[in-house]
């Protein structure tokens, strides 16, 4: 069994969406069958006092954070657990960035724990923890 060299304090390579595109939110609303108009009708976000930008779907943000973790982990099959807190909205046009750090390594179990998070135009968007396999 091969074990990856991972150390506590190691930073993960950031994952960045330079500008969140409002158009795919419409596709995602249809896929999710999510009737909430804040994802596709700017008039609804204005009415709710959220400004004139549509709100990216939570599952999209989760997918980006998942992608970020699995790139570091070395593939989807290396994921064990991902726990995410939703801290704020991700709006159309925002710069979305995932960052993270290794917080623990359990060589016997062949796992590592990560503290991960994402910001959207510098505002906290997601926070969470992940466990990944570090053994093949």
């Amino acid at each position, binding site marked *: 069994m091969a074990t990856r060299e991972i150390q506590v304090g190691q930073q993960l390579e950031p994952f960045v969406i330079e500008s969140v595109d409002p158009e795919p939110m419409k596709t995602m609303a249809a896929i999710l069958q999510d009737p909430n108009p804040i994802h596709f009708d700017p008039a609804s976000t204005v009415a709710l006092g959220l400004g004139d930008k549509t709100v990216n779907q939570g599952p999209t943000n989760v*997918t980006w954070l998942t992608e970020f973790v699995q790139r570091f982990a070395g593939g989807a099959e290396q994921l064990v657990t991902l726990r995410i807190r939703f801290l704020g909205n991700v709006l159309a046009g925002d710069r979305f960035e995932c960052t993270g750090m290794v917080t623990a390594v359990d060589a016997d179990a062949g796992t590592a724990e990560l503290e991960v998070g994402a910001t959207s135009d510098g505002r906290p968007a997601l926070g969470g923890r992940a466990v990944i396999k570090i053994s093949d």
Partner: protein
Amino acid sequence: MSDYAHLAGHRFPGGTYTLAPWLSWLWSDACKLEPDWGTAHQGLAYLVALRGAGVSIQDIFDLMDATADSGVVFGEFQVDYHGVLRPGATYKCEAEVVDVERKSGRRAGVFDKFTFQVKVREQGSEDVTVVCTNSWIFPRAEGE
């Protein structure tokens, strides 16, 4: 004040969900990731769990006496991965409400934290592929 705590233990219908390859492709495309006909993104766990649970977002809104414009947002989301999702695979899902908790915060005001869990197995297998635990936040007016 209405109390939804009695919903804990409520089981959704459950059922099966086939992860269509075209939908898997579109998901990655909508997320600005490289679509791949042969691989499903693990971020799809949310959708597979929700669809397989036999419940729609609107159904949950109805259960919680909320509407699409009530300002419902995600609270927390946990996925425990025991395998990878595959395009074209059919998944069998069991789902239930774990907890509904009335809370209040200085910024958020009064809200209900609605938590439900879905166990996803590939059809024909006893092994769990993923377990998804979702918490949604339902804003409430004082006295609602």
